[in-house]
Structures are given as C-alpha cells and as structure tokens.
C-alpha cells in the first residue's frame, strides 16, 4: 500500500559499478518482477530497496518518502530470502512473531496476527515445529508468513522459489500471486526464471549487466523486445536472429531481423528464405524444427504437432508476415 520509486539508482562495489542507473515508478499494489541472467545485479537492486545495501547514488522512495538512509525495519518492507533464512532454533510461531515482538506489540495482538497469517498459509498444524522439521514448501510458507504478519507496504522476494521442485514451484507461484492480490501489497520479485516472470508480473524489468534493458508488461515485452538481449532472453525457445541482408530486407541500418519461432512457417510456396532441416523435436502439443540457413545461422520453427513434419536433411522454405518481424 505504497508506491516505490527508484530514481537513477547506482551501486558501486569498491571500484566497480554494478548497477548503472535504474529508474522506475511502481504503482501502489503493482507486482514487479526483476528478471535477468545470473550476475546482472537483480539481488543488488532489490537489496538496495530493502536497505541491506547502501545506495551509491540516486534516490529510493517508498510511499513518496526518501528512504536511502533508513534502516530496513523503518522502511515498511518485508523480505523473503532465497534460502528462507528462518531462525533454526525458534518454532514456526516464534519465527513469525519475532518482528512483532521486537516492535513491542502486545502478546494478544501477536498471537492474533500470527494466527491470521498461519490460517492464510495453511500453517496452523505446524506452529509448534522447528524449521528443520518442515518440508521445503512449508518452510517457504513460513518465510512468507513472517513477511505477512508485519503488514508491510512492500514485499520483496529474492528468488523465493528456486529451492523448490518444479511442481511445487508452479503451485507456490500461484499462491504468491493470489496472496499479493488479496493483500494488495506492492511487490518486487527477483527471479531468473522467465516463466515466473511472465506469469507473475504486472510489469517486468529485464536487466542486462546492471541496466534495465526494458520495463513493461510481460506480453508487451514479449511482442516488442526493445533490444536483442531482451528478445533472446524472454521466450523459450528464444527468438531467431537473421542477417537482415540475407533476406533482402530494405530496412536500412538495422543489421538483424528477429522473429519468434511460432511466427515462422515452413512453406512449399513462395519462401522468403530457406535452409536444411537439421533435426526435429516433437514435444507433443508442438514440434520444434531446427533449420540451418545458407549462411550457417540456426533458426527454430515452432509448429503445431498436427502440421506436416519435414524430413531431417531436406531443404525447406521459410516465410513469415511482416507484422511479426522486429529489427535491431
């Protein structure tokens, strides 16, 4: 229940700058996902918002107030860590209650708020247990519970699901989204998993080496990637890149043409380019056809599994519509 603004945020560790100026205004209740490859500075950015890392220059505002100099506890935030960071010697109840205890809340209020959070997260049967007596998913929930009981205005998540197995990850992803909607809390969520980014985000920040390459709604970023990095990072299999000259595109200075695998069609009619089929992967609902172009570039075609499957080694023509191509 607060807006968050980052104003030309930079971070320097000793001499090296790792965040090169990031600006974003986050609306109240918005779910923002920070996504990017390993080492691009996602965690550092999040930790600067949390107050666990000092801001070298720029301004962080939460609810309109500058918070650069405030301790984490005074920023009205709660954070969920990748390894949960539960206090190992405390019961689930005490883990969730610790922040409130320090804040000097009354016993009755603490009990009530913890009970409320435990109910929401279906943790009621486990309140007396120690963290090591819980499964990964349950620990994850306790970490969430610890964040919820404080009733913060901003949730910060640093890869909270990366220690869970694939199935649980999907389930917890849904729960996090529902919880955030229900509580209406602004959320910043770091992940390197683009599926998580696409499904959770109202808007996402695609980071590349300390810069925000693109900020936008997931589908918008998917359809109109601003840089070649974003195009290659978002989407699986990634966007195909073709030499613009090879396909006789007049588009002047742009050297590369990008096209999503699902927008390429194998055609027997008039083709815009062509190549040799190297191999095909049938995935059930869809089939991926890997084609080698004359200049050696590889492209992937994603087609329905009902479509005719070309022979491996055969020559095929490729076509696409102008509206789907992007130039870099």
């Amino acid at each position, binding site marked *: 229940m607060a807006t968050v603004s980052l104003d030309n945020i930079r971070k320097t560790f000793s001499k090296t700058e790792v965040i090169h100026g990031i600006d974003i205004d986050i609306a109240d209740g918005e779910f923002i996902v920070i996504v990017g490859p390993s080492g691009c500075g996602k965690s550092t950015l999040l930790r600067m918002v949390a107050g*666990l890392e000092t801001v070298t220059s720029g301004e962080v505002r939460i609810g309109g107030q500058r918070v650069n100099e405030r301790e*984490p506890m005074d920023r009205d935030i709660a*954070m969920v860590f*990748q*390894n949960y*960071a539960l*206090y*190992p*010697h405390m019961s689930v109840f005490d883990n969730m209650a610790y*922040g409130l205890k320090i804040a000097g809340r009354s016993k009755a209020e603490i009990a009530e708020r913890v009970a409320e959070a435990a109910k929401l997260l279906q943790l009621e049967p486990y309140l007396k247990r120690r963290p090591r007596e819980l499964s990964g998913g349950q620990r994850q929930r306790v970490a969430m519970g610890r964040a919820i009981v404080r009733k913060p205005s901003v949730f910060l998540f640093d890869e909270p699901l990366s220690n869970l197995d694939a199935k649980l990850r999907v389930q917890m992803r849904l729960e996090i989204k529902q919880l955030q909607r229900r509580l209406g809390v602004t959320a910043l969520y770091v992940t390197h998993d683009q599926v998580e980014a696409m499904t959770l985000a109202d808007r996402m920040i695609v980071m590349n080496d300390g810069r925000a390459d693109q900020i936008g709604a997931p589908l918008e970023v998917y359809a109109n990637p601003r840089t070649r990095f974003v195009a290659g990072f978002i989407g699986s299999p990634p966007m195909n890149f073709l030499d613009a000259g090879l396909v006789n595109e007049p588009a002047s200075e742009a050297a590369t043409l990008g096209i999503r695998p699902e927008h390429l069609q194998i055609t027997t009619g008039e083709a815009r380019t062509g190549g040799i089929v190297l191999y095909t992967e049938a995935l059930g609902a869809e089939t991926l056809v890997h084609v080698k172009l004359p200049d050696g570039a590889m492209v992937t075609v994603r087609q329905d599994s009902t479509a005719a499957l070309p022979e491996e080694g055969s020559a095929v023509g490729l076509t696409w519509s102008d509206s789907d191509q992007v130039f870099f």
Partner: protein
Amino acid sequence: MTARDPLAAATPPVKSGRTPAPGMVERRGSGYWLTHLGLIIGLLFVFFPIWLAFVASTVSQPEIVRPPMPLLPGDRFFDNYRKALVSGINAPVALMMLNSLIMAMGITLGKIAISLLSAFAIVYFRFPLRRVFFWLIFLTLMLPVEVRIVPTYEVVAGFGMLNSYSGLIFPLIASATATFLFRQFFMTVPDELAEAARVDGARPMRFFWDILLPMSRTNIAALFVILFIYGWNQYLWPLLITTDPSMNTIVMGIKQMFPAGDDTADWPVIMATSILAMIPPVIVVISMQKLFIRGLVDSEK
C-alpha cells in the same frame, strides 16, 4: 519377464544366498568382542593408578608405607575424608575446593563471554584495524600463561590482586582458542539470517542474544567442559600468586601438602584430596556429556 531373467540367474538360490549372512555376523561378532577386550584392558590400565589412589585414601598411614601396597580398600574411608575436608594439612580441602570452583567457573564463564563477544565483533562488524585486532588475538595463541608469567605477575602484583579471586581469574580469561572456535562457527551462520533479523528490526546486540547465542549453545557447552577442566587444573599460576593458604586451590594444594624436609607425608589425606580433586570435573563432564558430544560432532544449524 525377460527383464527378470538375468536377475534370477545372478541371484543364487535362496539357501546359498543366505549362507554369507551368518558368516558375516560371526566375523562382526569376534571383532566386536576383540575391540571390547582391547578397550577394557586399556581402561583397566588407565584406571589402575586411580584405584590405587582410592585404596590409599581408605587405609591408614602405616599400611601404605609397609610393603606390599594394599590393593583393596581399608576401613578408614570416613576418617581420612573427614580429616581432609575439614582440616586438611595447610588449609581445609573443602575451602580449597571452593577456591578452585570459583576460579574454574570464573575462568570458564569469563572466557566464554569474552570470546563470544570478540568473535561477534570480528565476524559481524567492520571497524578500523579489524584485521590488526584479529592478528593480535591470533598472536596470543603463541603466548601461553607460562611464557608471560613473569610480566603478568608484575601487573597483578601492581594491582594488588595477589591472594585474591580476581588475581586468580582475570589473567587467564583472554582466550584466542575460544574466540577462534566461535569465529569459525559464526562464519558458517548464513548471512541471510543476520539480514532477516535486521529486516525484523533486531539491533546487533538483540541479534546476538536472540539468535546467535541460542544457535551456539552446543558449542558453548563443549567449550564449557573443556575450559572448566582447564581452569580447574591450573597449577602454576595459583602456585605463584597465592601465598595465603586460605586462597590455595586444590590442584596446587596437593603439591603444597608434600612436606618439606624430612617430615613424613600424610599419604592417606593427600590421596583423599586427589580423589576429591577429580570429582568436580567428572561431574561437569557427565552432566554436560550429551550437549558436549553434540557440540563436537554435529553443527546443527
């Protein structure tokens, strides 16, 4: 079916398949008894002098000096122990035990408190000359009490702490070993835990009390045992700074009981004192055994 065939061929029929089992049990059995025999012999070997001391503490003086030495307890148990505890030779053993207890507890608790705090400072805070302090602590490892005993004596004498508990305790409190142990342990505590506490609003000392200290309890227990025995067994330092018999500790007191010149030693009382001196460390070890072993073997995080 076909998948099972190779298995069936490789697995011998049930009867021959079972034969290795008893053989293994038998081999394990003899090894089991052999190791136990070895351990028992070793135990007897170590225990024998203690038994002799105990026997000597229950007989009368003439019986000890007349060969052969008795191997079974005599009937003077209560007399000898009462004499030792109440009057002793220079000072009553009960008083010496109290002195020892105060010194050992003081050293143990002091060492644990100081080393917990210094390890906390070194691991969690960035302050000027942090590295220098770290190496200074490291250096003191190379200076045991015996090496610095003369200057330490000067200092303690200068403060007028001879023949006092503070004189017995304070010079022995600084502990590089314990500091290192806690430093190693603190470094295995994930950073996120400190950060989570910070987000929860815990100031550093609160984090120390609420989280770090409870997490270190097995290490503290292990150190308590080791340091208590270390403190209890201090010999040279108490010998040097306590001239007043009422401040004697029991370990040095035993030596003080040996007569100077050609007086005859009261061996039964001396032996009773030795046996008494062993009791507190044994109690500490036994009562803290569970925590102590956990502290040594697993690092429950």
